[in-house]
């Protein structure tokens, strides 16, 4: 998976920007959690009388071709759209940190093997690796999340490896080694916690990308399946309505994705700057 993490100049996000982005994200999370309480309708509440309804007091953001309220669907969609990237990053970071730390600690052939593996995965441009996995194991959100998790593992592994190499050189690691502490114990108890800050900073930046990738997969039909109200899937389902002049079914979820990703990027870059971290 080729990851192009943008190098943002700090000028582009003034303090107001961070606070705005942060507030927005909190709002989104709250909305996702409270969706059943706040949403006026059921997410799959079909109502053909309201097909492609425009914005109105009954349907705050309009309705899609099946008459389902878009505001409701967007709220419920926040759940899958946020949990998905979280899950995939969880997978990718567990595997990636493990592999990266292993490679940095043992060096030699372990390092070489890990490097070769990441090279092969990097040879697959864009989402092609994920697409291959989906082709083999079938469509579905679980497959998509796992596949993306695997696809992001090399990026995290490489990053962890370089951070770990830096940490391994520090005296306190040697001190533990001299005391007779086993490699595994040192890695788990001391190495990883010290790298945690930079890794977490990097993960925040990756979250936005993960969200976009997952939404794209759903749009292509490989991720979330109907009747889920995943934002990417919503755009896919809303496409036929465009020619009829109804833009809300695609623009509402599209805007949601864009706004959340922008917010994550703004915050992520700020965090990355603060921790002295730069993506590759």
């Amino acid at each position: 998976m080729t990851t192009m993490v943008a190098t943002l100049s700090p000028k582009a996000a003034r303090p107001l920007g961070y606070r705005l982005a942060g507030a927005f994200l909190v709002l989104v999370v709250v909305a996702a959690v409270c969706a059943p309480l706040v949403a006026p309708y059921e997410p799959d509440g079909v109502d053909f009388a309201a097909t492609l309804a425009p914005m109105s007091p009954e349907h705050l953001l309009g309705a899609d071709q099946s008459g389902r309220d878009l505001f409701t669907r967007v709220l419920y969609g926040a759940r899958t759209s946020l949990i998905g990237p979280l899950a995939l990053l969880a997978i990718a970071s567990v595997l990636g940190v493990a592999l990266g730390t292993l490679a940095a600690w043992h060096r030699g052939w372990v390092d070489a093997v890990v490097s070769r593996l990441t090279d092969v995965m990097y040879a697959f441009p864009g989402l092609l690796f994920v697409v291959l996995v989906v082709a083999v194991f079938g469509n579905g959100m679980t497959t998509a999340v796992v596949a993306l998790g695997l696809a992001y593992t090399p990026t995290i592994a490489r990053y962890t490896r370089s951070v770990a190499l830096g940490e391994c050189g520090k005296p306190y690691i040697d001190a533990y080694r001299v005391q007779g502490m086993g490699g595994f114990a040192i890695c788990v108890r001391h190495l990883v916690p010290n790298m945690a800050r930079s890794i977490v900073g990097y993960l925040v930046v990756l979250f936005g990308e993960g969200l976009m990738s997952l939404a794209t997969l759903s749009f292509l039909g490989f991720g979330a399946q109907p009747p889920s109200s995943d934002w990417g899937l919503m755009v896919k389902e809303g496409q036929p309505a465009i020619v009829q002049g109804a833009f809300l079914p695609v623009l509402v979820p599209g805007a949601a994705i864009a706004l959340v990703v922008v917010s994550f990027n703004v915050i992520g870059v700020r965090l990355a700057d603060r921790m002295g971290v730069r993506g590759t």
Partner: protein
Amino acid sequence: MVRKLAGLLVTLLATSFVIFGASYAAPGDPVTFLAGGKENLTPEYLAAVRAEYHLDDPFLVQYARWLGDAATGDLGRSTQYNDQVFDLLMARLPSTLGLVAYAAVLFVVFGVALGVLAAVRGGRTDSAVVAGTTFATSVPPFVVATALISLFGVQLGWFPVMGGRSLWHLTLPAVTLALGALAIISRVTRQSMVEQRELDHVTVARASGLSERLIVVRHVLRGALGPIVTMCGLVTAGMLAGTVTVETAFGLNGVGSLLVNAINTHDFPVTQAVMLLMVSAYILVTTLVDLAQPLIDPRVRRPA
């Protein structure tokens, strides 16, 4: 040079191995998988598939045969269309390549222009360009596509909404495809130029009385080109894979949409073939860019 070519070969082999082996990774019997997972699979049909794909041979022999066939253009038979996969690909490749070429022109011209503008003007122009490009990279291509179709296709009616092969038809898709690349290239250009501008030899040139315009073009830009050209090459390499989303969003009939279609209809031979094509193209182009480094930067050349 030889080492890089060897590396190229190794990566090609490794990735093709993964693509080939994927059919074995599938749950269940590879035969059923390769037959397209359709219902009503008679034993005779399955036997025919087994024979066609030589599934009784050892794994590595199969791989070698598959690879050899692919190299000579025999990519198997589509389970959906019952056509030769090769023919299917060839029919759709021109339109995809046209799209990629169009997008490449767009992002190179506008990306570099924006980057130069941001670097030279500085101040508010700079902030605006950076903010704009950051936003552009935060919007996934399919959202851009649907937004563009909504606005320029339906609402304003400037562009045709779906399909087609003409330049006009391909404009919106090309713009969508180029957007992410444009943001990256403008960022790289800006960064590279800002770095170059600080270098001593630029001050020396200024001190010898050259006009600012000449300095920017002859010294700053010329020195900044290395990373820019490299990045352009790398981005173009990955663009073929980007056509998957864009062609699907715009209903274009190209290699990218063929892949999506093939996966949804469990047409594995086509899937494998398209993946092989895209991955190989990517590896080849990135290696070419790597090999071209000495041409771009004389310092990398071996001494005569």
